[in-house]
């Protein structure tokens, strides 16, 4: 039984990690080596002449090229990464701020129809982006928000509110009311109690919420490709937009870029690993 367990686990681990390992290898290649008819899977430190050999010369050129503008693009990968960072971070801050306030309202006050409102908030997440993107596009055209950082920031903020509200409500519910009541007795106003007593207690929850808002904004593609097709282009839309490139896809740069792109997300996820599941299920499962 134990043997079977290990076998299953290791077999899956190997299969699941293989594409990632291949990506890491590809990021060290030159383009010709990524599409060679004889797979190159062994990095070597010097040039390899034999085209049928599994060895390839490892190089960091792809990482260096991340700052270069590729044919068919207007900006380098780093430029697009900048857009992703600005849009991801600001929308995350906004979602967490609004979501925390809203969740606090639902957690501590009697809001008429609270349950219905909460489920309405959750249900907004079910809508396929493609079903609402045209009206949003029309709206953004009128407001001149198409192709701007601000446009996607607003959209991702709204898009992530359901997550932020649900997660934060769970975290706030866990903070004992006695804390605030004590503060009120001490002469704090409601607002002061919220800011000075509740928020510090909710720090962890806010961090977890922020990570999950960031992930979904970071990886979003449907809105990004349609609303920001030629300005403030984020990384997923940038890479996908290279398809049909006459010089072919720059595979080493894509591999290197994808690794750089996922690195911060991985770090954040490890930091909040204890609340990972909670974040992924909108707080409906509290590990």
């Amino acid at each position, binding site marked *: 039984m134990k043997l079977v367990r290990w076998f299953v686990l290791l077999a899956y681990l190997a299969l699941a990690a293989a594409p990632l390992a291949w990506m890491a290898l590809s990021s060290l290649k030159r383009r010709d080596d990524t599409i060679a008819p004889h797979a190159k899977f062994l990095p070597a430190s010097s040039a390899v002449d034999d085209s049928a050999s599994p060895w390839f010369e490892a190089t960091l050129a792809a990482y260096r090229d991340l700052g270069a503008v590729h044919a068919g693009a207007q900006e380098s990968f780093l430029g697009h990464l900048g857009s992703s960072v600005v849009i991801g971070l600001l929308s995350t801050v906004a979602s967490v701020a609004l979501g925390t306030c809203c969740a606090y309202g639902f957690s501590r006050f009697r*809001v008429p129809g609270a349950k219905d409102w909460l489920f309405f908030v959750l249900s907004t997440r079910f809508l396929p982006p493609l079903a609402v993107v045209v009206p949003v596009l029309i709206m953004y055209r009128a407001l001149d928000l198409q192709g701007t950082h601000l446009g996607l920031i607003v959209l991702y903020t709204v898009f992530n509110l359901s997550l932020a509200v649900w997660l934060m409500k769970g975290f706030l519910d866990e903070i004992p009311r006695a804390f605030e009541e004590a503060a009120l007795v001490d002469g704090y106003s409601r607002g002061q109690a919220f800011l000075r007593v509740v928020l510090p207690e909710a720090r962890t929850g806010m961090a977890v919420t922020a990570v999950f808002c960031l992930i979904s904004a970071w990886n979003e593609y449907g809105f990004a490709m349609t609303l920001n097709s030629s300005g403030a282009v984020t990384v997923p839309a940038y890479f996908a937009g290279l398809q049909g490139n006459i010089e072919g896809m720059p595979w080493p740069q894509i591999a290197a870029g994808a690794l750089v792109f996922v690195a911060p997300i991985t770090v954040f996820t490890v930091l909040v690993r204890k609340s990972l599941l909670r974040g992924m299920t909108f707080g409906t499962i509290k590990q």
Partner: protein
Amino acid sequence: MNSSAQTGRGLAWALVGPTLALLVAFNIFPLVYNIVSSFTNAELIGGAWRSVGGANYARVFEDELFAGALRRTALFVVCAVSVELALGFVLALTLQRDFKGKQVVLTTLLIPMMLSPAVMGLYWNLVLNGNYGVVNQALSALGFDPPQWLTDRDYKFWSILLIDVWMWTPFMMLIALAGLNSIPTSIYEAAQIDRASPWKVFTRITLPMCAPVLGLAVLFRATDALKQFDLVMAVTGPNDAATQTLSTLLYQVVFRDGSVGLGAAFSCVILVLVIALATVFTRYIDRVQSKDVNA
């Protein structure tokens, strides 16, 4: 007291108001826009709208294209969710006990889930390429005659499913693991005293006790898989008859063909389905939460 309750209510609305208003606005405007334009010949570029009555809806219901996309999406959701659930559950069983390096293994397993589907879909084009892709080279070297994963009409749909399984099995695993961990060890001990067979323990204790949490997992994945867009766009594009899903067909209709009216009618039909699903979902969450099954 009365005035404090008043300010309390005011404060409550001040807290929840902005968020709710934003969500209502960003949902109601598209809804109204879609409903109105679905009865017109609206195009992406300019031109005044002209009413076409129910013609767009007639096309949605008659044209095989839409029914096909719906069927394909349903198949995708069912297959993706069940395979991921089964695989994830098995993995969770292997990870139930603690061992050295478990955190490292877990983190590695979770990485695919954090990747951008649009970028990964693109990258799998390289891995599964029929000519120089590493998968086919390896299979050929082992003596198989590998298929054309991304271009053969019998395979491309399943290849996309495979990528989805690779990305999202960890999610199911994580949830299943939480479910397993929430079962008190005392129950297992009692079963041991009763000399229940391992199979019986699994079917009578482990599965039923995990079921509510797994139900949540299924619903979360199903709503996500229903929106499948990024992978299909990256692998075959929106106009491939063998892989067209609801979202990619919408993209094709609206952004390639420019038929906003027809797309809106289709969106409204999808919306009805989504609302139905959302109702099931929210009821279920409500039930699970009120029972407070999660530890």
